[in-house]
């Protein structure tokens, strides 16, 4: 499903963020991406989410190399991804409900169907956002916005979930609610790659990890890395 081959990234005038990163993920895999602040986790996830291109190397998603894929195929790939960016990036003009519904609509689902509305409501309920559904996204707290971003990513039942620090602004209860949702999606067949600083999560939910340190990625098995 996801193949990184000798991928390197640096920005103009800066030193390399990471280099020669190679790993694969199959359907149903769960991978933590861990590393210190500034290690390049977000850059790596943005590349996988097709938001940026690698400076060198190749990223392939669902068997398609992103460098040469057609516009229509790229669009289809993006519709199969659920991305939770670090900055949430909700559309402030839209309500909570509409931000989540828009994701579903862009994935080709009919938003107006009762089943779709029920699915969105259920997700919002689980994340404690039922009272905020008609609030504009710009009126939410950081933690609420982050939960909306997760709901937006998961509502479209993606094949690949990319989450960048999705629990960073959450209390313990919501942290585990979110992890519950990710794990449930993973059990349902979605591959999940999740960047986190939270050692407790990594300790309690043992999964394979990719440790980003000094520009290199080391893959660790589900043994405790902390």
């Amino acid at each position, binding site marked *: 499903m996801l193949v990184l081959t000798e991928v390197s990234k640096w920005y103009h005038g800066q030193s390399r963020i990471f280099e020669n990163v190679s790993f694969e993920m199959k359907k149903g895999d769960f991978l933590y991406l861990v590393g210190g602040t500034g290690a390049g986790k977000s850059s790596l996830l943005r590349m996988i*989410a*097709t*938001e*940026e*291109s690698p400076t060198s190397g190749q990223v392939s998603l669902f068997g398609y190399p*992103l460098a040469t*894929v057609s*516009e229509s195929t*790229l*669009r*289809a*790939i*993006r*519709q199969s*991804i659920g*991305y939770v960016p670090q900055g949430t*990036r909700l*559309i402030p*003009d*839209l309500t909570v409900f*509409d931000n989540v*519904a*828009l*994701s579903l*609509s*862009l*994935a080709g689902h009919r938003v107006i169907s009762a089943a779709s509305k029920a699915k969105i409501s259920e997700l919002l309920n689980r994340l404690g956002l039922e009272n905020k559904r008609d609030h504009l996204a710009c009126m939410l707290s950081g933690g609420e916005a982050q939960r909306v971003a997760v709901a937006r990513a998961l509502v479209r039942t993606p094949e690949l979930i990319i989450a960048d620090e999705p629990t960073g602004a959450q209390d313990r209860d919501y942290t585990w609610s979110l992890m519950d949702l990710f794990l449930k999606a993973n059990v349902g067949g979605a591959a999940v790659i999740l960047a986190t600083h939270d050692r407790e999560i990594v300790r309690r939910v043992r999964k394979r990890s990719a440790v980003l340190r000094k520009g290199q990625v080391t893959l660790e098995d589900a043994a405790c890395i902390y």
Partner: protein
Amino acid sequence: MYLLRLALRPWRVAPWSQIFSALAVGFLLLLAGFLFWMQDGLKTVVVRLKGEQVITAYLQPSIESEAVNRVLDDVRGVFGADAGVAVQLVDRAEFLAGLKGSYPELVRDLEDLGQQVSQVVPRYVSISGVFAANKLDAVRKVSGIESAEASGDRYRPIVGAFSALRWIARVIMVGICFALFTGLIHLSRLNGYLQRDALGILRLWGASSMSLLAPGLVSGLLVGALGGVLATSGWLSLGAALGRQVRSLSPILNHLPAFSAQMSWILFLIGGISGLLAGVFGSLSGIQLDRQEGGQG
């Protein structure tokens, strides 16, 4: 629905930019419409001025008074049913009366000639209007006409001036259209920048090209259409008065056509289409900018 809300974002965030742009579009459209009306109307005036002339046909001195009407009828027959052709006999008394104001002594001397004045002062038929060049020869062949001459090109300097005016009006129209479209494109780029964050998210979530273009299209269309409405209102409310004012400047301009209500709809359509096209350019540049910054297709 979501895209429509996104399209309205510039109206929430930068309303005065949209409003003033719409006002500018309306004014420029109205000005362009007026210039188009004028240069198009002047074509009729120029054609008329080019063709309008005066033939002076001198009657033979020997023609008796009773035969003069026959000659007049024959001359009228040359022009047949030509509308707007005026045929007028100027007899000796009228001729002398016309000279008296400027040359009173000459007129007294001529009057003192008595019967011999018929040898000196001609009778002539004055034919004025717009007619073909071959009519002069036809008039010369009329029995009782001694000679005839045409004024020919008497309005040439005015025709030249009006032709130049038409060209200048067209150049200014092109300039106005260029300014209008440039202004709309810049506004659309501003609007595209205001919508950039949301468009980036939409692109990342797999939005189609049409979905990405839609907010910019609608934003541009709104401004262009509003400008078109303003131009239409201006045309319908001020057009008739403006047209009357221009036509009253000179008798020559009386042949300018009246302002037509149809033009107001054309102005509205041009405003809307310009806004739509500018919205496309603005959207494309916004998407391109987002791609360049992201470094991804």
